[in-house]
């Protein structure tokens, strides 16, 4: 008989070595997340996937599923914490959705919609961050980086390159690229790389593609991220 954990009272089967996130995704249970992607090793940094496991807060993307665990996921207090975390991400960066070409396709925005986030709550930082538009096919807008490290992991684990890294600590943390000039144009990234397409926000964009799909007809304009995420990530996992 398959081993199971309980998530919000539902019995969820899992295979040895799976995380709570993997077991939940396979069973069609959405746990909000931004830094998690089923194709890459977990990072556990965004904390949106925080669930209660036997009464204690854990990151579902890194915590191993174990027989008999009682997991609480879709609860009012957890979703309130997730909303606060999302608000902190918004005020730390410069997320002006009306002037961002990723709007409607942005996972940060979609998670915020899903959590019914209507305001930023906290004072805004308005930190000055640069933009790197040096590359012919790609650009980095550091204003929108949430340090999920998905580009770092995709470049390393999938593309076999080391284009990105996170440098600095705390409030000085920032995304860097692997070139002496510090510019994207001098790295070996290509617009075909996984790392070029993995950004959950509008921080890494492919040039010449903006507004091909009009606002109002984009991914999250009519579908919630829980369904979109399960559809794509269950498929990914089966590969």
């Amino acid at each position: 008989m398959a081993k199971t954990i309980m998530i919000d009272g539902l019995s969820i089967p899992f295979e040895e070595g799976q995380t709570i996130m993997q077991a939940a995704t396979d069973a069609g249970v959405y746990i909000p997340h931004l830094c998690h992607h089923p194709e890459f090793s977990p990072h556990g940094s965004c904390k949106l996937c925080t669930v209660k496991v036997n009464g204690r807060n854990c990151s579902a993307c890194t915590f191993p599923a174990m027989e008999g665990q009682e997991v609480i996921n879709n609860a009012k207090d957890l979703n309130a914490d997730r909303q606060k975390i999302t608000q902190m991400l918004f005020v730390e960066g410069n997320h002006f959705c009306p002037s961002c070409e990723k709007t409607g396709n942005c996972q940060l925005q979609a998670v915020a919609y899903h959590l019914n986030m209507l305001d930023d709550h906290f004072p805004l930082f308005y930190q000055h961050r640069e933009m790197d538009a040096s590359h012919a096919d790609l650009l980095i807008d550091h204003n929108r980086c949430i340090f999920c490290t998905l580009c770092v992991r995709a470049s390393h684990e999938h593309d076999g390159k080391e284009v990105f890294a996170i440098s600095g600590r705390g409030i000085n943390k920032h995304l860097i690229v692997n070139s002496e000039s510090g510019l994207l144009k001098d790295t070996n990234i290509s617009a075909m790389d996984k790392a070029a397409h993995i950004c959950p926000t509008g921080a890494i964009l492919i040039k010449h593609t903006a507004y091909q799909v009009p606002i109002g007809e984009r991914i999250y304009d009519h579908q919630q991220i829980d369904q979109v995420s399960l559809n794509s990530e269950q498929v990914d996992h089966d590969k």
Partner: protein
Amino acid sequence: MTNKIRVATTSLAGCFGCHMSFLDIDERILELAEVVVFDRSPITDIEHCSTDCDIGLIEGGVCNSENVHTLREFRKSCKILVAVGACAINGGLPAMRNFIPLEECLNEAYINGIGVENAQIPNDPELPLLLDKVRPIHEVVKVDYFLPGCPPSADVFWKFLTDLIAGREPSLPYELVHYD
């Protein structure tokens, strides 16, 4: 008349797009007018809030000293204060000047700009002084509700106001929550 709900509205550092969107409720405004009376608002041209306003709708962020005075008058006069639209909520487009020192902004616009004649930075005492940074309104006064969007759609205004007027806790379903 006296039992009607008093609504005041203003645009601070905004573009009046939220007001235009509000007016997009179209003929529903007649239904609204049966229960609501507009107090200080660009719609009425009344200059100051009555002391007993029920709902204050604020479009735009806070970019100058006059915005601060207006916002404080609204907070003082309105039982319920609502941040309407992206600029009121996070500063929006005007806040994109926050990354450039104010002096540089003024020099670019009034001194070094292309086609500027008689270059001088406006300093008439009638003009409100600019703040160093554009701020969202919740950093200046307590805000009770937020209507996101650039602008919030007419249906957002309608859903919010009809909820509030009917005595329900206002809530916006997924389809009505947009930041763009």
